[in-house]
């Protein structure tokens, strides 16, 4: 018997396809998310929009908070560690969280190195803006990739950019001759073996999810139609006017992302979305997506 193999790590990501992973900051919110049909929750102290508004160093969540959320639900509970902060990750592993998000939403602890995720038994998800970044994270052991988007803005534009980039670069790699793959690997700054894998399979080596700026059912369905296999919703649910209803609507929009008539039915009558930001008006230093490389 082998515990925590590559198959069981990627396997849990496979189990999470077609659903919604929701950020929650209390046991009560976790219950609301689960009742609405969330397939997993991300346990946090503050959602990204609050982190953005409050400033300062954003770290791994309070462990009491994580434990309280683990107690409240039966679905998987994820938690975030700072980029490169492998001790936060060790602590989260000891807490037996089901997935660790090595996340640009928190303040990076290392501007050069990401966590060696192969060294852990718990699986990791990492953000990416393009195929090279996605494959570098897979090379370090990420068992799930998500777009970075621009978290806490309620603005889908960056997640769209990142997903389109990843998908079009996958199509490009597929179209190459075998003897062109080393140059592609050099250009993408990605491990050659993984570039070859993408060339053969036409998809990322691990499940490919969307995150960062999803605020409406239509946003979630857009990401699914662009190639996402599931979505993370951060601030978009619990900073909206009617979280329970919006949570359910986003779940339904992911299930029927390609069926506009059902999208009408799930979207109609929703109360207001979260407060949003124009990313072009943000200062460079306020952007989260460029954190990590």
């Amino acid at each position, binding site marked *: *018997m*082998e*515990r*925590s*193999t590559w*198959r*069981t790590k*990627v*396997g*849990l990501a*496979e*189990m*999470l*396809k*077609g*659903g919604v992973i929701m950020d929650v900051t209390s046991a009560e919110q976790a219950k609301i998310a*689960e009742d609405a*049909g*969330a*397939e*997993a929750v991300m346990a946090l102290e503050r959602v990204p929009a609050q982190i953005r508004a409050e400033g300062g160093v954003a770290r791994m969540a309070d462990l009491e908070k994580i434990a309280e959320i683990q107690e409240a639900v*039966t*679905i*998987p509970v994820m938690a975030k560690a700072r980029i490169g902060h492998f001790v936060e990750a060790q602590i989260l*592993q000891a807490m*037996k*969280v*089901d*997935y660790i998000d090595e996340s640009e939403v928190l303040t990076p602890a290392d501007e050069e190195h990401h966590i060696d995720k192969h060294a852990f*038994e*718990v*699986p990791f998800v990492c953000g990416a803006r393009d195929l090279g970044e996605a494959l570098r994270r897979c090379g370090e052991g990420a068992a799930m990739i998500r777009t970075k988007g621009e978290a806490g803005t309620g603005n889908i534009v960056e997640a769209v950019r990142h997903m389109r980039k990843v998908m079009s670069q996958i199509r490009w790699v597929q179209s190459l001759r075998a003897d062109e793959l080393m140059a592609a690997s050099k250009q993408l700054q990605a491990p050659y073996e993984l570039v070859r894998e993408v060339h053969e399979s036409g998809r990322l080596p691990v499940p490919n999810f969307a995150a960062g700026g999803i605020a409406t059912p239509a946003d979630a369905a857009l990401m699914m139609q662009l190639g996402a*296999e599931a979505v993370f919703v951060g601030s978009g649910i619990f900073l909206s006017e009617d979280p329970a209803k919006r949570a359910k609507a986003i*779940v*339904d929009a992911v*299930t*029927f992302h390609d069926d506009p008539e059902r999208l009408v039915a799930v979207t109609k009558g929703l109360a207001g979305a979260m407060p949003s930001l124009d990313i072009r008006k943000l200062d460079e230093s306020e952007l989260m997506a460029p954190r990590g490389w």
Partner: protein
Amino acid sequence: MSIGVLALQGDYDAHARMVERCGTTAQRVRCPQELKRVSGLIIPGGESTTIGKLIDRWGLHEPLLERARQGMPIWGTCAGLILLARRVEGSDQYRMGLLDVTVRRNAFGRQIDSFETDLPIRGFPGGPIRAVFIRAPLIIEVGPEAEALCETDAGVVMVRQGNLWGTSFHPELTDDCRMHRAFIELARG
């Protein structure tokens, strides 16, 4: 002929890829109309509470029971097993209530306790299969209508009851198509 894969949430992709590797069409099933076209149905792994809510929300409960009564083969893996069960220990969550078993959710622990191992299945030729367990359930009681086919040290992990199969583990995450081939043969009738 096509094999349906319930595609409300979970690892429906992995199952569909296996069915297609066996040379059979895989049809995603999310609503009653899509269920009408299939000769057998796989209920994938995922979150049983989530999938259960969506079965109910999208009006699939009665149509699923009707097809099961007519003898359509149904195979539930992991969450799918929980959804097929009659009894779920300590939970009143949605279930179809077809398999005469009691299951215990997350019986092996959290994700960090997920594992894989080789297991023989009684009456199944070609040697043991690689069984992948992910936050897996255990069958803690097998009623008179169901038959246990496979065990780990912890207890029963596969049952059959007529045309219904339930497995705690995920053959769809391996390269071994034998169980999918056998299920397709069953659906072909």
